[in-house]
Every structure is written in C-alpha cells, then in structure tokens.
C-alpha cells in the first residue's frame, strides 16, 4: 500500500500530465473547441423573410413615372406699346456718340432713356409720354439743361401693361388738340381745348379722330358715313377754323384701341387716338 506521501507525489505528475494533455502532442490533434457544437451545425436553415423574398418573384421590378411639361409661355411684357411722345436728343450714324449722349442724359433725368437703332441711325430718346403736354414740359426741361436740339417725336411708347395703372397715375389733362409737331406750346393747347364747342361727357378720356378739315359740310358727311358704317357714336368738333371728326368715347385706352384697329382696317387707315 502506498502512503499518503507517495499518493501526493504521484498526483503531481498526473495532474501535470492532465494539464499538458500529452495526447494532443502525440496524436497531432491540436485543436478542440470549447463552444457548443450546436453553434457549428445547423439542423435547419434559419428562416428569414428577406432571404426568402430573394427567391420569390417579389422585389424584382420597379417602375417610376413622372410627367414632363412643356415650358410655360414666356411671361407677357410688363409694358405695352401705345402711340405717344418721346424727346429725341440725338440721331446719327455713330453709335459711340449715341452712347455718350445716353450716359450723359441718364445723369440728368430719372425718366427712361432709349438707344434706338432704326433707319440706319442711332437715336437717343427720352421718356414715354402719352400726353403731348408732358413731352413738351420735358423738352423744355432738357433744353434748360443744355440739350438745345431736343425735339418732341411722335412714336410708339412703352406704358405699363396694366392700363388701369396708367390711368390711375396720370394727371388727366383736358382733352388735347390734335397733335402735331408744329404745336409745341402747352398754353396754346389749353386754349384750343377751351374753344372746343361740342360738349363731351365728363368721363370720356379717349376717342378716335378720323379727319381734320376746314369744310364743315365735309365733316358732317363723314360723320354720317361713319355712323352708318360702325353704328357707334360719331361727332365732330370745331376748333377755330377747322373741324375734327371723331368716333367713340372711351374710359380706357384698351377699349379705344379695339375700335381704332377696326376703323383702320375698314377704310380709315389714318385714324388716330386722342385724349
């Protein structure tokens, strides 16, 4: 029988051998895992909706749609053109001189200054004046600032496209006389209006002048012709020694211009709008 001392001595190498696991050294089986074997071997595939969907017909196609719209029409210009007046300061074949004048006059007025190239000439024109009297005042002002050659040109001008804006912001003068380059003085215009013999409705702002004549009979005949042709209020007015034949009375320029176009297209191409 071994003593307890011998047992103790024997147990030391046995424990050491167990710890060192000499079997592994001898057989070459070096690796064993201490994790649960269930982690290595799958009994059944792991169920997963996403992976299952990969092998179905779902999730294989997609379609997106959108509508392409044509671009909107360009916005209407914020102005429209009407008959009116500008002050012309320069006309010449030299664009550099025109630009020089434009720069100078830009410093002398807040009104719009236009550089226009027409008829082979570069022109510098100032302002958009529906009424002759305003144009004349501006001409005088420019004359006083050294623009001696300024003169009033009758032409198409720009006014805000909203006619009510024009109307509401303008000081409405009494109806002016027929416009012409030979009647520049505002005082004369006022006098002539005062001489007007035919009463007009207070609200009339625009009317279409067909003709000016010194022969009253001729004016009467034209008035009858116009009445028959257009069935619209026609009349003539005496201004000094002459008679002016008109058609229509309008509150707004737009309405007047509709008739103006109609009149011009039906036998009176020289008709014009007056205020």
């Amino acid at each position, binding site marked *: 029988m071994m003593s307890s001392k011998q047992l103790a001595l024997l147990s030391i*190498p046995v424990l050491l*051998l167990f710890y060192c696991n000499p079997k592994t050294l001898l057989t070459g089986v070096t690796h064993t895992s201490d994790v649960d074997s269930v982690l290595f071997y799958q009994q059944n595939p*792991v169920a997963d909706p996403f992976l299952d969907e990969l092998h179905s017909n779902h999730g294989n196609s997609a379609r997106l749609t959108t509508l392409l719209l044509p671009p909107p029409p360009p916005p209407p210009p914020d102005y429209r053109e009407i008959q009116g007046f500008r002050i012309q300061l320069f006309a010449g074949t030299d664009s550099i001189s025109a630009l020089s004048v434009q720069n100078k006059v830009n410093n002398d007025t807040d009104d719009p200054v236009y550089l226009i190239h027409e008829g082979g000439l570069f022109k510098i024109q100032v302002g958009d004046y529906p009424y002759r009297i305003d144009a004349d005042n501006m001409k005088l002002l420019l004359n006083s600032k050294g623009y001696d050659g300024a003169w009033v040109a009758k032409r198409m001008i720009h006014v805000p496209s909203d006619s009510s804006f024009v109307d509401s912001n303008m000081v409405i003068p009494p109806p002016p006389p027929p416009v012409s380059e030979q009647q520049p003085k505002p005082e004369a215009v006022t006098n002539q209006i005062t001489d007007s013999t035919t009463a007009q409705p207070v609200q009339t702002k625009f009317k279409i002048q067909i003709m000016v004549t010194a022969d009253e009979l001729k004016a009467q005949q034209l008035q009858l012709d116009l009445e028959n042709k257009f069935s619209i209020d026609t009349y003539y007015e005496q201004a000094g020694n002459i008679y002016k034949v008109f058609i229509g009375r309008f509150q707004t320029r737009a309405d007047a211009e509709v008739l103006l176009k109609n009149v011009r297209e039906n036998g009176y191409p020289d008709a014009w709008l007056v205020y």
Partner: protein
Amino acid sequence: MIRLNIFILMALILLAGCIPQIKEAALTPAPKIRVLLDSITKKDSIIFNNVYALKAEEADYEFGKNNRRIYIEPLEPGYRIYNENRIFKFTVNDGVIFKSKDDEGFFTFHGKRYKGDILISLIANKDLQIINRIDLEKYLESVVPAEMPSHKTGYYEALKSQAICARTYAVKKMDERRDRSFDVYDDHRDQVYGGLKAQTTLASNAVKETRGDVMMFDNKLADVFYHSTSGGILESAENVWPNYNQPYLKSRQDAIGQSFADENSPYFRWSDTLSINELDVIFNHQFNKSYLNQIVQDTTELIFEVHILKRTSSGRVAEMQVSFGDTTINLQGYEIRNFFAKPQRRSLPSTLFTIKSISDSLLVINGGGFGHGVGMSQYGALNMSEKGFKYYDILVNKYFIGTYLKKVY
C-alpha cells in the same frame, strides 16, 4: 523507494517536455513582401526618420542624419533623387534601394510612417513606383488592424483568423507576382496597409501568435476571400469570379446555431431610397443624359424601370436591366453596385437586395450585407470570436470548410 524515485523522475521528464516555451526556438525569418505605396508622375518626397543608406557600387550614401527629406522627380527619360547636399540621376533601367541601418528605422511617405526598405523604379518610363519592402509579418501587423476592428479583446480570435487570411492572400500574391515589380497594392485592390500608425497591440499579438500559419487546400495555398458582412448568406466564388470554383467557397447560410453570424453588423440589413430626380442625376453623371431637364413640346410621360433579370444561387443580383427615357442598359456584377452610387456613398453596399417603388417617384432598395459575400464575413468572425470560437474553427469549420492550417515558416 527505488520505484517511487523512478516514477518521480519520469514525471519530471514529462513535465519538462510539457513546457517547451521556456526555450525560445530560433524563428525562421519571414519572407519580405513588396508593397506598392504609390506611382508618382511628378516631384514627390520621402522623410527619413532614421538613417537610411542608398547603396551604390562605390559607396553607401547615408540619408536622414541632417537633411531628412529627399525629393524624387521623374525626368524624361529617367528620374532623379536629391536633397540640399546631393543629387543622383538615374536612367530608365536603374532601380534604387534605400535600406534602413537598423531594425527600428522607419520613413514617412504621404503622411504615413512605414518600416522596412524603399525600392524605387521606373515603369514604362512613366510611373515612378515607390515600393515598401518589408518583412511579411511586420506587413501583416499593419494590415490586420486596417482590415478589422481591434479595440476589443473579445475580437482576438477573429483577428487571428484575419491574420491567417491576410497572410495566405499575401503569400499567394507573392508567388503569383514574383516577376512583377511589386507583390501587392496598399489599398482595397489587395489589402489595406495602414503603416505603423494603424498598428494595435491586440492585432500585432494576433499576427505573432499565428506566425507563419497559412490556409491550405489540397496541398496548395487556399484561395482566400473575405468581406465585411454576408447578410446571412455566403456567395459562391464562381458567381463573382468565374475562374474561382473551390468547394470551400460555396454559397450557404452564414449562421451560428439558429441565428445569423453577422446580424450585429450595421450592414446586416440596409435600405436606400432614390427619387426619380436622384436617378436622373445618376443617369446624367454616367451617361451624360438628363431626361428631367430636357425641353419637351408637349406633356410627355417619363418612365424609369428597373428589372432584376437574374440572381445567383445566394439570391444576389447577377444581372439587372435599367430603362430610363429612351435608354436601356444591362448591368452585371459590380456594375450593378456602381450604378446606384450617390455622392454620400460610393456604391451600393452589396448586390443582395430587392427593389420596389413606393410611389410614382420613389424607388426603395432593401438590402443585406456589405461586400461580395465570398469567404469569411469579418463581422461574422468577430461575433464568433466573442462567442468563444477559436480562430481555426472560424476558418476551417465555418468559412473555409475543407481547408487546413499549415505553418510555412
């Protein structure tokens, strides 16, 4: 008493045999690997942090004592290397080696520090290659932490798995490219090599503990692939690279028991939403065509359609057709991931996805995984490591079943 003495003697002999670690065996030197750091076409510089010697026939020229920076500049033809004191001109065929005077020497290039030698050579009289020649094990110490997180001790076994994968890959490339001027790129084209700054103690220990271990199959180095996240299903190698058809790289579920190995990965499941406007930007970027910005004369319906034409056995998208306006394209493989690239991410994380539209103008891509899905899932390995798996189980019992490990030096 005699018997007892004999017994004790035998036990002591056995005991002595059980602790061979006491005597540290001389290590077989690891081979040196050539890592391409960059191909430069214009003047660049290297900073020596220790003394490096340029070996020439007549003498060794030392650098790094006073003027630590040298400049390298391609010429036509050849190139030159110079600093404030010296200038050397080289012809097209000249190769240059800067060797460190001691093992602790390192240099800095493009802001990263590296150990080992520097090889410089001109390729095709155009690209001046800056190559780091370094002991393979030292190289791995900078690769493993760059390829896998190494901040938790629970990742230790996964890091050892990664070290063996990286070593096997590198040794294989060294053999395949022995006639070329370098063995591996320093980025994702091969393995990300982070230099000295990338190294961590845990990853370095993982490399040291698996020193010389590689993965083998059929007496040859195994083909080793790894990726970030499988998404629950591994891909067969031949579906990604037709030339690789290995029995240990086949599609199967990537699970531990009854749960997926990398379900803790942030890329295990992902979702992405693309509007028709973003798809138009993608189309415009790739094909120089913007359909949304075209001017039409009349109201026109614009349709974007995508159809998955073919999936691999794992369910990954193998072929996809995309139609937009009057353009139809067929995409395959990595093109599919690249097609959906957005400014905030380079490409789709993977081709493991489904698609659907949730409105007329929104496309939803529900996906899983990150990477090609072949070989070892790094997040799966990390999870297994934390659960107590040993590195050899992660490799030969989970991800490369049928391979075995071998110490090659």
